[in-house]
């Protein structure tokens, strides 16, 4: 896709430097122009992919702030300096999607957004000292960080008959930790506030200390059920840095395991939705199918969660002819069972009654928050990285991108059901066309000086790994899990629904806490 000429002219008039780097347009600008420039791209439909900072005080005498935008299939990277002690102008009043990013930058770098409507801490709160910033280069991880009492202020809603229901961080089900605070008047939810960060493990800082080959192992543990997508994105960005290319056969194998990952996650989500509407039969059937895929993963690769397959320069495991044939026959079987399950589910009146019109996320809100993946597609936002910025073997695959308009639990269920069908078809195509050859190229050379950006469509949506490299390990590694873009969508979607519908709406969003908290 090519850039719109008028937009380019506008951008270049505000830029200090403009550079085409493959698919990416790199735009360096001054601090004063940064917000206006991002806003101009945003106004013509540019979607904020990420907003993050780096500590480049050693070389550039300042921090740098990077905004990545996706405009009509073109990626734009806007960068400007930010100085310690000088608050930067917040993007949030104009680009709502920047909200959590700026709060994260504040926590991690100690750079303060000026004009942010909600400048509370995002992941380091309560008792984190206010002058310690982990992603600064002069931060010393070896010292013990004292606990300094500090209060996290929740938003309060007041009025006759308004009550608050606090839930978590330790939940009743087997799920990850997070805190939900509902303000209710009777049954209906008037507002929900989500507070996360409980599983913040400092992944981005750790990655800066890990040699590239170990970084793959860390990437697989960012969000366990997204191991294949995170490791693929990590490997792709390192491959970009070292200008190496995975062999074609490896790209096909990556595609197959990425789709297997989507399959087991979507099957789990679909079954979870059935379970939360108390429709036990398809739920049980669905979880059996999910287990079958996990077993298939183990048989095919040695790991139920598809770990240790992606490696820098390709993959570690080959799929031989024998395995390929067996995998195909398993898929036929799974497909038949899945069709039975989905028709049972979607023809049940009691099930439809629970999911239709529940937890609506409007297209406008989905766009404004920068939602991604099945959540965005269920609200009519037509984005899918596999088509928009193809990687691995996706350029050779033909597949459909399911879209729905209603933005409710029903739409999110249907989108996933359709995507499961597409995943089956993609795996079959990949197995059919997989070329012969090696599965890994040698990892050598020195990293390029510019940034590397890799996007992968995980089961939850667009996933980004962005990197500045050094010889042995990343200088800065920014990870943006799809859940980071979708959590605020949940806050909006449950408004007006009743409390007992919350688990159902939450399940239909299927968000990762670990991926969000990093």
């Amino acid at each position, binding site marked *: 896709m090519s850039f719109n000429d008028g937009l380019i002219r506008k951008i270049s008039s505000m830029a200090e430097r403009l550079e085409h780097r493959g698919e990416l347009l790199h735009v360096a600008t001054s601090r004063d122009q940064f917000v206006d420039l991002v806003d101009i791209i945003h106004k013509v439909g540019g979607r904020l992919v990420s907003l993050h900072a780096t500590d480049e005080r050693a070389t550039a005498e300042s921090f740098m702030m990077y905004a990545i935008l996706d405009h009509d299939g073109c990626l734009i990277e806007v960068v400007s300096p930010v100085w310690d002690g000088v608050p930067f102008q917040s993007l949030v009043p104009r680009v709502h999607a920047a909200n959590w990013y700026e709060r994260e930058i504040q926590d991690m770098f100690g750079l303060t957004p000026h004009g942010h409507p909600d400048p509370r801490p995002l992941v380091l709160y309560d008792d984190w000292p206010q002058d310690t910033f982990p992603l600064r280069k002069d931060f010393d991880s070896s010292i013990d960080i004292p606990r300094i009492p500090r209060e996290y202020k929740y938003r309060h809603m007041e009025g006759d008959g308004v009550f608050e229901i606090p839930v978590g961080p330790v939940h009743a089900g*087997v799920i990850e930790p997070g805190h939900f605070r509902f303000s209710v008047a009777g049954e209906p939810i008037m507002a929900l506030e989500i507070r996360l960060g*409980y599983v913040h493990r*400092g992944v981005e800082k*750790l990655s800066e200390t890990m040699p590239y080959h170990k970084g793959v192992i860390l990437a697989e543990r960012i969000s*366990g059920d997204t191991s294949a997508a995170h490791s693929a994105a990590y490997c792709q960005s390192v491959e970009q840095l070292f200008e190496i290319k995975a062999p074609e056969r490896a790209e096909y194998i990556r595609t197959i395991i990425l789709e297997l990952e989507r399959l087991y996650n979507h099957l789990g989500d679909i079954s979870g939705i059935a379970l939360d509407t108390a429709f036990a039969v398809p739920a049980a059937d669905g979880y059996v199918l999910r287990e079958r895929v996990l077993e298939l993963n183990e048989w095919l690769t040695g790991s139920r969660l598809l770990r240790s397959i992606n490696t820098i320069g390709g993959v570690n495991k080959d799929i031989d002819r024998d395995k390929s044939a067996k995998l195909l026959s398993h898929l036929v079987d799974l497909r038949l069972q899945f069709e039975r399950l989905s028709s049972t589910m979607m023809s049940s009146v009691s099930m439809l009654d629970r999911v239709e019109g529940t937890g609506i996320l409007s297209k406008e809100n989905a766009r404004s928050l920068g939602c991604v993946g099945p959540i965005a597609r269920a609200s009519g936002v037509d984005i899918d990285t596999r088509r928009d910025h193809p990687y691995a073997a996706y350029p050779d695959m033909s597949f459909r991108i399911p879209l729905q308009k209603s933005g409710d639990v029903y739409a999110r269920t249907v989108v996933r059901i359709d995507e499961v069908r597409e995943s089956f078809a993609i795996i079959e195509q990949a197995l059919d066309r997989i070329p012969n050859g090696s599965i890994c190229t040698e990892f050598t050379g020195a990293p390029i000086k510019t940034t590397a950006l890799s996007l992968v469509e995980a089961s939850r949506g667009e996933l980004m790994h962005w990197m500045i490299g050094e010889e042995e390990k990343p200088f800065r590694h920014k990870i943006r899990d799809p859940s980071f873009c979708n959590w605020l969508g949940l806050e909006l979607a449950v408004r007006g629904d009743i409390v007992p519908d919350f688990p159902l709406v939450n399940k239909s969003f299927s968000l990762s806490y*670990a991926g969000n908290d990093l």
Partner: protein
Amino acid sequence: MDESTEQLGKQLQERIHQLFGRSLGIREVDAGSCNGCEVEVNALTNAIHDIERFGMHIVASPRHADMLLVTGAVTRNMEMPLIKTYRATPSPKMVVAMGSCAASGGPFLSSYAVVGPVDSLIPVDVYIPGCPPRPQAIIHGIMVALDLLEEANNR
């Protein structure tokens, strides 16, 4: 049906019945996991493994639990919730540290945001290695915890 699960499960069922005369209540606590361990704990309750038939019940509150199944290297932000959950569990109680992170801190040990492995905060009875441990390994780990409980009872 997986034979190893079947065999393990039958043994467990007898032991649980002898020791408790009812089901064993397990509360899972994610203290900083990547959610890989949660995938496998959830797999325990699908119709293939179905641990409920062996008398193992995942309960909704630590107040109902005989055993805490803790995953993840304990993060700074989960230190207090984990200790509170431990205190809320009635004695006698067992703690199982599930997965490499819970047992040793895994790749997260040196992070500023991680306090340490589970046993740096609460006493642990059994460690289940694996990243994540397979469902059969979890069942095996629970059985080892029961052995320890029985030994303590006989002492």
